[in-house]
């Protein structure tokens, strides 16, 4: 148990380091175009680049021992527009794919996103690592140059360390006579089949999330593609000499990102590399089954208050809400929460039209709500907090996010802080309610949209406030009294600056009409 706690502390320390790097990149790229926040979708982009360039290369590929080398080599020797560029992009996209895939694994692993409702995406992601490398290594064989020859032999020798095959695979590459044209048909089949399996696996990987990002923002996609094209033009990929089974290639320009396993095998032993692979897989597949923190209560539905509007169904980032027939109201639907999928983020509660504090009932109950922080508790805290705020100067309500910068640190006599499970838990009507009940302005502290712990919380909040998504903030709310500040965990200083800027702006503004400020609700 002590070892687990040490590992946990180490993970948090590494996560803090990673967040610093991410925030440094934010300053350069802007958070919305920061590649470190889009590693998964960049992986998809690189996969599509691989598919497009691969289809082109395949059209020109000759599936025979002699033709394989000749057809690929000609691509590099001809003008770049006749295929050389695409061949190079194909290789470099594979390198990039492996880099962003490992980066994605590292980021999600450090953030502890392998337990609870994220267990299945994690478990379905691990085999994709293997498929990616199998596909990449097989691609080198198809070139059938000396690098392909080396890789084929090294792979066969490594596989032969396992008692899987009656006849050693290595015998297929023992002499020139052993390598047949039919082998290349098989290799092409593998090099196309494994990526298809990868697509299938990716589909499983993103099955449990809604609106999965399968393409990065366009500027990021364009810049990444352009970078690979420039690299392909500056350093086009060249074939080594043709494969010759009678010699050992003397010196190889090996692709260390994709073929590192071969030198590792020869530097240690096949058994050692198998053991390393096995241990890595056991660790990765075992992480979701480590002792977990106590489960957080999931969203609950109140049938009497659910009108079946489907907004929670639309907004849930993890497809945890489904719509079923209402038990008592014919022709109506009722939201139903799947506890295994629910992230307890509260975004559904923020989407519920019945979660408005303007309702007159003494105890506010909404259609879908979070047991850990109900809309009734939010309204009560807001009322009590507003009543206790110092008078004489601008009074500000801060709706914070527990996953982002610690908004509590902004608490002051003139500032009321309410920490939500996620910024997306905030029904927009609470903003209007706060302004009508005495606040001069509202500051919503949300995580960067590209780094929201629950994926869509910040995005939905922005859209609801901008009136682009239901439930939306009413037009009558003065927009200059509402501010959204993006601040991830650790960016408290940035949040404090946003609050100061809001204070200064308020001082320069006339007070709102008295009638509105003293309105009493409920």
């Amino acid at each position, binding site marked *: 148990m002590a070892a687990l706690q040490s590992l946990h502390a180490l993970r948090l320390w590494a996560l803090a380091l990673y967040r610093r790097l991410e925030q440094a*990149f*934010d*300053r*350069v*790229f*802007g*958070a*919305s*175009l920061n*590649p470190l926040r889009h590693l998964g979708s960049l992986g998809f982009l690189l996969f599509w680049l691989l598919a497009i360039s691969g289809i082109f290369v395949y059209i020109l590929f000759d599936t025979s021992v002699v033709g394989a080398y000749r057809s690929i080599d000609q691509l590099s020797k001809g003008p770049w527009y006749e295929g050389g560029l695409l061949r190079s992009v194909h*290789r*470099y996209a594979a*390198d*990039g794919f492996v*880099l962003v895939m490992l980066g994605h694994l590292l980021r999600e692993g450090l953030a502890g996103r392998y337990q609870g409702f994220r267990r299945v995406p994690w478990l379905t992601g691990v085999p994709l690592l293997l498929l990616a490398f199998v596909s990449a290594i097989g691609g080198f064989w198809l070139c059938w140059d000396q690098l392909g020859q*080396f890789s084929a032999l090294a792979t066969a*020798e490594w596989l*032969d360390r396992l008692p899987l095959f*009656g*006849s*050693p695979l*290595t*015998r297929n590459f*023992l*002499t020139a006579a052993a390598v047949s044209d039919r082998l290349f048909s098989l290799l092409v089949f593998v090099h196309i089949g494994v990526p298809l399996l990868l697509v299938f696996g990716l589909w499983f990987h993103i099955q449990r999330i809604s609106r999965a990002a399968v393409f990065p923002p366009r500027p990021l996609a364009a*810049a*990444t593609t352009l*970078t*690979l094209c*420039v*690299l392909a033009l*500056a*350093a086009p*990929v060249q074939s080594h000499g043709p494969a010759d*089974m*009678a*010699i*050992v*290639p*003397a*010196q*190889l*320009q*090996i*692709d*260390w*990102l*994709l073929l590192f396993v071969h*030198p590792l095998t*020869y530097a240690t032993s096949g058994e050692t590399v198998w053991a390393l692979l096995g241990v890595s897989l056991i660790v990765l597949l075992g992480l979701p089954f480590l002792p977990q923190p106590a489960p957080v209560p999931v969203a609950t539905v109140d049938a009497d208050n659910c009108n079946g509007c489907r907004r929670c169904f639309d907004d849930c980032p993890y497809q945890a809400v489904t719509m079923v027939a209402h038990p008592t109201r014919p022709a109506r639907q009722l939201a139903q929460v799947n506890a295994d999928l629910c992230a307890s983020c509260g975004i559904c509660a923020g989407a519920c039209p019945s979660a408005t504090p303007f309702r007159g009932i003494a105890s506010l109950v909404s259609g879908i709500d979070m047991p850990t922080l109900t809309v009734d508790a939010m309204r009560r805290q807001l009322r009590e907090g507003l009543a206790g705020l110092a008078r004489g100067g601008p009074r500000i309500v801060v709706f914070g996010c527990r996953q982002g910068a610690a908004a509590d640190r902004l608490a002051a006599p003139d500032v009321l802080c309410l920490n939500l499970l996620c910024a997306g838990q905030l029904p927009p009507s609470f903003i209007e309610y706060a302004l009508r009940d005495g606040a001069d302005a509202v500051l919503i502290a949300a995580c*960067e*949209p590209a780094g929201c712990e629950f994926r869509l919380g910040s995005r939905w909040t*922005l859209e609801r*406030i*901008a009136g682009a998504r239901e439930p939306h903030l009413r037009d009558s709310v003065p927009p200059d009294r*509402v*501010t*959204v500040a*993006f601040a991830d965990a650790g960016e408290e200083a940035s949040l404090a600056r946003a609050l100061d800027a809001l204070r200064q702006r308020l001082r320069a503004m006339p007070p709102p009409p008295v009638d509105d400020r003293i309105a009493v609700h409920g």
Partner: protein
Amino acid sequence: MAERIASTPAAWIGQALLYAVFALIIGVFSQWPAYRHLDPGQALIKVSFNHQGKPVSACRPATEQELGKLPPNMRAPMVCPRERTPITIEMDLDGTAALRHVAVPSGLSRDGASAFYQRLPVKAGTHRLAIRVKHDAQSPGFDFERQATVTLRSAQVLVIDFDPGKGGITLQ
């Protein structure tokens, strides 16, 4: 209310630099440092075979008792063992024992082929080789022997195979 978007000249330069670093990492490590699989001045001998040895013992006539237990259509007069001889290979290199291996037949009944693969890096130059193979447990000593003097260039691969149907021990 807008997201933070970096659009200053410094940010543009920074982005260009970081994309260049990304390209540099891929461009460099996709071909550097060069890897040398075999030390200079070395050659490689690969010894391999995939062959089914002879039965471990001779066929014998079935006893009356054995035949009586079998259906009439299965009463073969001779009983032959399924198990095959493990194949033993030895190789001397310049008069010194360099390799000895016994390849066990595959299959639960040990009736399949015996397979073997071994790579031996050697110095380039002339070498005296003596290879011996035994694939029949019923015969004394080794069944196949071959001696050869080979001259191997640096990085050359010599394949030593064994297939009685193709002349026994072959050097390619």
